[in-house]
């Protein structure tokens, strides 16, 4: 797989299973959707001013979007990463991700955020030397192009996109007006004013 991780946590089984082709519908079990809700909520939490990713049913959104819009390779990369999160949760923190403390959840995701940044940096360096310099899953070129080949940008992007285009995200965290009625080119802005959702 395309992911640069400490060797200890990349097991051959994991590589094999994650590269197998399109994801089956049953991957989006209730349990996994709940897990995705928890991941999303860690990235975009409910705050005193607005609801978070869970309220936007981010797991359910990911189910629809990943199933219908991702290529089989992108889906493999996505699930590889989700399984990775599960694995670290149980191996390192001895519990399921949803049951971890917020600090532990963040620790895991921040690690992947950093990995993904490193990965993108290395890929930039090495791809110029050889188009195939980075190990990619079979036929994973497409996924690389769009998401940098690492699963975490996918999860982050799905969370942001799914949340900010949802009703709670667009109308409570941002400002949304379907029918503005007019256009004004110069409206005073003061810090804290929300961005337009569309």
């Amino acid at each position, binding site marked *: 797989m395309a992911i640069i991780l400490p060797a200890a946590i990349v097991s051959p089984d994991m590589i094999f299973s994650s590269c197998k082709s399109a994801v089956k519908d049953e991957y989006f079990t209730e349990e996994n959707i709940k897990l995705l809700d928890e991941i999303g909520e*860690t*990235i*975009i*939490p409910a*705050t005193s001013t*607005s609801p*978070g990713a869970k309220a936007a049913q981010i797991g359910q*959104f990911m189910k*629809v*979007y990943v199933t*219908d*819009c*991702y*290529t089989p390779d992108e889906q493999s990369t996505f699930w590889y990463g989700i399984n990775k999160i599960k694995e670290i949760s149980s191996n390192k923190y001895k519990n399921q991700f949803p049951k971890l403390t917020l600090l532990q959840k*963040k620790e895991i*995701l*921040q690690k992947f*955020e950093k990995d993904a940044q490193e990965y993108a940096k290395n890929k930039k360096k090495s791809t110029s030397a050889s188009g195939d310099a980075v190990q990619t899953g079979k036929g994973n070129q497409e996924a690389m192009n769009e998401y940098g080949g690492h699963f975490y940008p996918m999860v*982050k992007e799905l969370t*942001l*996109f*799914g949340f*900010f*285009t*949802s*009703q709670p995200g*667009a109308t409570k*965290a*941002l400002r*949304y*007006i*379907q*029918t*503005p*009625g*007019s*256009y*004004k*080119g*110069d*409206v*005073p*802005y*003061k*810090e*804290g*004013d*929300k*961005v*337009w*959702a*569309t």
Partner: protein
Amino acid sequence: MGNINSKGIKDNTYDAIVIGSGISGGWAAKELCEHGIKTLVLERGRNVRHLIDYPTMAKDPWDFPHRNELTLKVKEENPIVSKCYAFREDAMQFFAKDKEHPYIQEKPFDWIRGYQVGGKSLIWARQTQRWSKYDFEGPARDGFAVDWPIRYEDLAPWYSHVEKFVGISGNKDGLETLPDGEFLPPWEMNVVEKSMQKRIMDNYKDRNVIIGRCAHLTQPKEIHLEQVRGQCQARNLCQRGCPFGGYFSSNSSTLPWAAKTGNLTLRPDSVVHSIIYDDKKNMATGVRVIDAHTKVITEYFAKIIFVNAAALNSNLILLNSTSTRFPNGLGNDNGLLGKYVAFQNYRGTLNASMDSFLDSYYYGRRPCAVMMPNFRNVYKQEMDFLRGYMVFFSAYRGGWEHAVAGDQMGETFKQAETEPGNWGVSMMMQGETIPKETNRVSLSKNKKDEWGIPLLSIDVAYDDNDVKSLKDFLIQGAEMLDKAGCKNITSNDSKQAPGLDIHEVGGVRMGKDTKTSLLNKWNQLHECPNVFVTDGACMTSTGTQNPSITFMALTARAANYAVEELKKGNLN
């Protein structure tokens, strides 16, 4: 003709037939019907009724299962149309699907089509600028195409005629290079755009920065209210069909207006096979139509025929209209039918950031950009390439997707993402391309579509002139952004295939000489004057303007001429 039921012929006979219900066909129908001409409008696609058939017009982002993105299946089945910026979950229903409507690409050409009543007028980008006298004089002055048989003065009253009805917002800028029209109030520039306008115009005495002109009712007049159209609400969701009739389309405007006269017969699901030519009468007598679903062939008859099937399909129909007199296509004695196709060059884009102005934001979604009329080769040939380009740009503040520093998750991150980012500027070109004999369309000799009509084979490409023009734009664009105070300027050549501009024109060009053109100054086929071609196919050159308003003006002008000629008995 002896064996054909005369009642059948009578039932299928009109004064005029218009092939196509898009932006120009709608205008032909309106003008003809208003003058008491019984008009049959043939549309190959399904009916789309204003408001009733706009299923997505009131939807919010979260109402779309994929939040307006395309599914993998849609992309795989539609590799061509998926490239179009407006082909998304909310407006897919108004685009022809690749699989259903194949064509042959001799060279890469992304052919974007709208097969329904209203055609592409439902999904167009709605930018409307008049041509200037320099655009009409250009081909003869610089010798890159045949002379236009008309001049700006011939079309100016017809621009006014259509602009008043359509409703065009714009500022009276008083520019010779982009004449003013019958304008409704203009859209505003935001603070960054205003600042850039000043700095660019201070730095370049030959360049103008103005607000875009577009077919949106910023302040409806009586004539628009009569069309039951209301003020544009700055939603910028136009390609779904507008619940307010805020922008112009055949569906919201010309077709219902024509229907009100009682003279319109609209026949959707009617695929035109060819125009019928009568060798004895030496004129076209009607149109052969295949029912889109039953495939039953019916002939319709009329004294005059307007061909408005959209540029390349109008070529196809004429090429497929063969007879003893015209074995190579209707009116095609000189063999030039299908040749001298041109388009517009959209390859160049620039992006930049702009510091400060953080105490200002905007409200609503403006349906146009800021623009700069062409400033290259206007008064004389002076560059190492022919013609020029229009520049469009707009400034905006970063949305929720903008990158933020610091925490990448949690409360602080969320807070940062929910506030607007800094200002960014995007700029693009709309370049004139040179019509060439080698840029052409023809009929496939062995491949046919579902209706037995030969597939269109498209052989159109960029040339060195386009690359030089593109390079000039990228250099000038970067320099102007720099002088306007922008930072982090990046340029890009999309290398997109011709066609994706959706501004393809020509193939049945107008001209003065029957040896070098197909149409005369009234858009009549030289060799078959009761056939008028008034969509993009008639264009002798492309200009740097968005083309639709010129098609509309040419159509209204030709239709009124046709009515006069009919009255004089010159066309029957």
